[in-house]
């Protein structure tokens, strides 16, 4: 099994750092738009609408704050999983099966969380 060198490890660290930064900036930008739209509409920071994926597109097109806020929140929540997925790819490319397995198991636990939450919703 090929083993990752220090330089390759550093390369993966830097790639993960860039991914985290990009995902966080994207989510904060979307949340920022949502908060500005909240202020423009004179909405108090309480009593927002419940999450409804079916309304997301319409809310974005209509420039309703909740559309941008929900998209930003989804982007924020998805960023750590994207980071783990990127790590999985990086470890596989570096021939590190154990770390790739760890990454895969983490993704599996997160997926199980979503499935359980969906199954027990309401």
């Amino acid at each position, binding site marked *: 099994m090929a083993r990752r060198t220090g330089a390759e490890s550093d390369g993966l660290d830097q790639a*993960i*750092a860039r991914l985290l930064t990009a995902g*966080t900036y994207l*989510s904060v930008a979307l949340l920022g738009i949502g908060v500005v739209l909240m202020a423009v509409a004179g909405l108090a920071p309480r009593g*927002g609408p419940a*999450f409804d994926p079916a309304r997301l597109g319409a809310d974005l097109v209509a420039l309703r704050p909740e559309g941008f806020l929900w998209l930003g929140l989804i982007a924020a929540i998805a960023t750590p999983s994207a980071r783990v997925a990127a790590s999985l790819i990086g470890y596989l490319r570096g021939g590190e099966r154990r770390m790739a397995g760890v990454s895969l198991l*983490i993704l599996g636990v997160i997926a199980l*969380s979503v499935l*359980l939450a969906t199954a027990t919703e309401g």
Partner: protein
Amino acid sequence: MIAGGAAAGVFGSLLGLGGGILIVPLLTLVFGLDLRQAVGVSLVAVIVTSGASAGVYLQRHVANLRLGMTLELFTAVGALIGGLVAFLLSDRVLAGLFAALLMYVAATMLRRGTADEAAPPDESDSAYEPAADPPFSASLGGPGYVVRNVGFGAAGSVGAGVVSALLGIGGGLVKVPVMHVIMGVPLRVATATSNLMIGVTASASAVIYLLRGEIDPYVAGPIAIGAFVGASAGSRAAHRIDLRFLRILFVVVLLYTAVQMVRRSVGG
């Protein structure tokens, strides 16, 4: 609300705690949110804090990605368990648990002297090469330190995940002491690696809170933006700030909020 999120982001990024420990009391005691909704919003802020600060710590070779990935598998399992159990407990029980945790952390911080302020790793020494076939724990170390007691670390990480999901914090309160005291990781590396891990821990339970309608977007938006600003500033200033001063300040905040949460728990 944005300012409160920013303060939590600064503390969270500096100490590897995510900031939820301040956001939950802020939202419940100052803004009157239901505790469970506050936990849901706090989890989002923890994720943003993690993303903003971990990127910086990875670029500066302070966070340990391999160690973080390994332990976060166990914290994710714990978070899954905690996220499901949280909906079975009352607000008063959650408030009592939170108060107990705050007091425990405050006591731990007070006991710690300056002796355990390990120096940051030499950033020039990042080219570490594992031996031909080392044990798994040997591959988790970094420049200037080896990781020990991986089994205990894994067990502690499960506990950190449960605490994270129950109380809306990143779990760093447990992870940092586990890594530093039990596994022999330098304190600055432990806090930076904790910042990396807390995002995954919090996201595993945030999904559950999101789908159960316990996240108010009108609250989460301003709080998350504040947390981002605070965490970005905190992670960039971390190497210039005396952690002893921060610890003392943090202990004061912890004890104050613990008292408030006890009052809430007993209905006072």
